């Protein structure tokens, strides 16, 4: 600092002043809470009495807790159904829309209407559509001569019904991303393949897919990370039920922390979620990441 010229010094002071509000928020509501969560994970604490240091026992108890195991399985199931179906559908529609097209802005905008809509609100809308007695879906089923389905009322159906809503809500978001990725593919490559007589399917697997693989890969990772943290829809639609059918990870964490006031265990769960997401992401990078083609884009 001592050797800095007057101008550099003034610039540095200005720099610190400009980042002060942001850095304050970052430290107090991001960085310090992360550190505190890790520490709290080693304690037992009900918010009222003093926290007690318990070492790794929260983690040991959680791993033995059948509801915890169930919530991990439920969440994995959610991710494994949601992400591939959502990506495939979005890619399909994006390819359909990837041409010089009229009403392009209108169409793109209409596709993201569910995405800007409050998850709790659309969750309630779908709860009405799924209603066993009077809901729209069962009315259609009866009209075409099928039996009613207890969409949200039966443990066998509830999870998949919630996943469908999640796929629906975020579909447009992924369409926009894939469409932008597709538009980065040079026209000439596509045209050369057509001249060479490549079929639509060959063009998809040999040209389109490799060329948008970086966009696809990044989107998959972000989607996996986001879906692991699913909360709003199951909270608003089923509250984790019926029974434990839709008790996803964050619902159980919320229950532990804010209904049973077991802050230590809930903090340990939060840290474990981070670890689970980290492992999954690393796995993704190793298994899928190697196939991603970064050369041509």
């Amino acid at each position, binding site marked *: 600092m001592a050797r800095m010229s007057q101008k550099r010094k003034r610039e540095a002071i200005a720099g610190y002043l400009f980042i002060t509000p942001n850095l304050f928020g970052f430290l107090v509501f991001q960085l310090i809470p*992360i550190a505190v969560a890790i520490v709290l994970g080693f304690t037992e604490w009900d918010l009222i009495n003093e926290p007690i240091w318990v070492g790794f026992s929260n983690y040991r108890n959680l791993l033995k807790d059948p509801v915890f195991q169930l919530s991990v399985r439920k969440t994995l199931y959610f991710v494994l159904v949601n992400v591939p179906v959502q990506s495939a559908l979005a890619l399909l529609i994006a390819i359909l829309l990837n041409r010089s097209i009229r009403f392009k802005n209108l169409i793109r905008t209409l596709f993201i209407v569910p995405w800007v809509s*409050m998850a709790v609100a659309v969750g309630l809308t779908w709860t009405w559509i799924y209603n066993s007695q009077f809901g729209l879906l069962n009315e259609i089923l009866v009209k075409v001569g099928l039996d009613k389905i207890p969409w949200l009322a039966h443990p066998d159906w509830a999870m998949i019904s919630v996943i469908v809503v999640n796929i629906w809500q975020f579909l447009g978001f992924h369409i926009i991303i894939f469409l932008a990725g597709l538009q980065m593919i040079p026209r000439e490559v596509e045209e050369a393949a057509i001249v060479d007589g490549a079929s639509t399917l060959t063009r998809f697997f040999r040209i389109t897919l490799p060329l948008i693989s970086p966009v696809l890969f990044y989107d998959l990772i972000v989607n996996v990370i986001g879906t692991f943290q699913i909360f709003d829809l199951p909270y608003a639609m089923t509250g984790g039920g019926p029974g434990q059918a839709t008790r996803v990870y964050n619902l159980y964490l919320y229950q532990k922390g804010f209904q049973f006031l077991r802050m230590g265990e809930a903090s340990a769960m939060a840290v474990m979620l981070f670890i689970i997401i980290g492992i999954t992401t690393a796995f993704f990078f190793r298994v899928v990441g190697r196939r991603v083609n970064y050369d041509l884009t």
Partner: protein
Amino acid sequence: MKKPLHLVGEVCFYLIIFAILFVYLFPLIWQFSTSLKTMDEVFRGFSLIPNKPIWENYTISLRDFNVGRYLLNTILVAGLITVGQVLSCSMAGYAFAKLRFPGRDFIFFLYLGTMMIPATVTLIPTYVIVLELGWVDSLAGLVIPFFFGNAFGTFLIRQFLQGVPRDLEEAAEIDGAGYFVIWSRVMLPMAKPALATLAVMTLVQQWNSLVWPLIVTQADTWKVLSVGLAAFRLFRTIQWNTMMAAVVMATLPMIVILFLAQRFFIQGIQFSGLNR
């Protein structure tokens, strides 16, 4: 070049697209239709257009189910956070993009490093902070933890301002402008598209957010729409028509803003999905 599509083919193409969109958006159409029906009509079976639209469902929902209060709270909370985030992120984004100061790259690296950490991790400690400050069930408790911005917003503004040529700053400096003037008179006008993108992304995110308001408000006074609506599920008898009226009021404002600011939403999505 692609062969010009045959006219019939082209009409079919648009028919398919708009048919897909109709099915895709039908839940929202159905929601609006239900919100204007009587309860008799709601249970009578399929009809899209209500016999006589019952707009009273909206006033009932606003008054008797406290949705009016929730709506005002939501506007206040989401609005304040958006203003705070845009200001704070535009200042920090400018500093990270244009000013040199010791530790800059390290701090920015820390920002990026925490972007992948799930929000759940900070939830309990942040709640403890707010509890200690006595901010449970208050506007401060809802707003302050998000008011100062986040890594995403700072990153967005920084990326944008890095593309602004140095000549502009230098010209302003020669004119004797200080850093504050450069920020407010040169950078902010240049960064308008990025600021608008950040503003709409933050607004939607905060308008719709559930987890934080859910844990930080217990009394009705400061409940926001997401929290108030989520409690509807627990009512013994559900008035589907007034409930759908509340749902329309919770979603329509963001849909209107989406149509007014389409470009910035698309840019925001592309930024969050395409930067590598």
